[in-house]
């Protein structure tokens, strides 16, 4: 009975979220913000671009500066970001990057559990991009919009 209740709850959560993502113009209130180094001459990115960046497919800002990725090692922030932007669970995302690592295509980006550490890394690394919890970006980095 417990399993059935869990399954039904999980199914409804998934259906509601999927329905919301499929509706044009629907913006989910995010508990995170996307931050970049202040030298990045970009003020907004599309969801598709952000997905390509975090899957390791887009590596340059406007064909110029190389992108330096950083991952939040924060379950809630990362989970929400991955669900909204990459359409993957944290485990699927880990597997995606492990496949890149075990075929020689990429290194695992640095991970930060703490928003201040993440912001500090992004602020001091040219071309860097990261995710922090909303309200914890600080002034040393630039917040970019996700269209």
């Amino acid at each position: 009975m417990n399993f059935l209740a869990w399954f039904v709850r999980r199914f409804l959560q998934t259906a509601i979220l999927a329905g919301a993502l499929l509706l044009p113009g629907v913006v989910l209130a995010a508990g995170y913000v996307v931050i970049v180094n202040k030298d990045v001459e970009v003020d907004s990115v599309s969801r598709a671009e952000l997905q390509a960046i975090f899957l390791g497919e887009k590596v340059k800002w406007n064909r110029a500066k190389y992108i330096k990725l950083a991952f939040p090692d924060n379950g809630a922030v990362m989970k929400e970001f991955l669900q909204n932007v990459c359409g993957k669970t944290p485990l699927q995302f880990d597997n995606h990057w492990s496949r890149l690592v075990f075929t020689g295509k990429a290194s695992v980006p640095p991970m930060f559990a703490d928003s201040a550490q993440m912001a500090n890394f992004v602020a001091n690394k040219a071309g860097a991009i990261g995710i922090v919890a909303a309200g914890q970006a600080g002034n040393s980095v630039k917040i970019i919009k996700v269209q």
Partner: protein
Amino acid sequence: MKTLTMIVATALLTVAATTLYAAEIEGVEIHGFISQGYIKTTRQNNFPVSDSGEGSFKFNDFGINFSKQITPALRVGLQLTAFDRGNYGKDKVSLDWAYGDYRYLDWLGFRAGKIKMPLGLYNESRDNDALRTFIFQPQNEYYEYERDSITAIAGGSIYGSIPLGKVGAVNYQVQVGTIPITADSGTALNYGAYISTPDAPLAVTDISSDITVVHHLEWRTPLEGLRATFSGLHTSFSGKAAGSDSTGASVTADWKYDSLRRFLYGLEYTYNDLVLAAEYQTDDYTIMSKYNDPANDWESKQKADGWYISATYRFTDWFELGGYYHETYGDRHSRDGSSLVQSGYVANKWNAWQNDTALVLKFDPMPNLTLKVEGHLDEGTWLLSETSGNEKKRWYILATKATFSF
């Protein structure tokens, strides 16, 4: 082999002690995996481990890789692997991949060295058991006997990612080179079975590939979670084989596995914790073998194919369930097997096709540890390479595997 095991074990201990997911020394990132399994099949059907009918622990995989980002555009790395499947693999350490990678633009990068082949949805990452749900992926598409050959190419490649706006994005790779392959590989063992005569089992003594081209397209569609792939492999293998007949007389052969054209079409759909996948593969090739007794010479054009559908669902952080159904045919224009019986290539129609139903339980009790139990019910024996003629039409595989990966 002991050296590789010690290196991987030392790295694992380092990782375990620091609870990091990778070891790093002087900017060189180190990752690795160790897998050990046990397999038992129907006594007469040894597949894909040579002595699986008796039950076998000769079923392991090891790997360790080193990589370094030299500049933002340039990275270099290599991976050493070893595996055992009984009569092939045999825990011999080999260079799995080693290449330099220069990423010039999002849509244009270059790689040179020994590079993993992107065939189908999963071929590039098939070494590490922890990266997939199943112990054995569908064997028509991910054949264990090709594990040490049709997985990497020595040469160069161009690759990149191209955004397509509202219709998604495309990732592409084109590779040109040759396939490094040795006479003790699983592929050579498989080809030896092909060119053996009824009276004389032959073993491949020399094998090499012609110039090989691999192409791969992955389309990430606008439908969230849906990706489609189209891959091709164009190559030929040739070599020599030797053995003796029942009278003890020497039998030699010059053989060619000519103009192999392999195409794979794949679809994968991810919906939260549910992953559905399907692939279809065709193999067109000509086998020719010339013996020291020309009366035995033969040539045969083959048109094989196979497909599968699979589903996996992640129930919790530590438990995943998966299953697939898979069919493969030696002659796609004669699916009941009659053409290969008439040509004398197989004795029974069911030797010319195979279907396979698999179910796996995957457990991840710790971040770096994966445990699996997998069962297969099979009918037909087309994919079996090490045969005695006593194989059963209906048979089973039961496999377990534990993998530590970092």
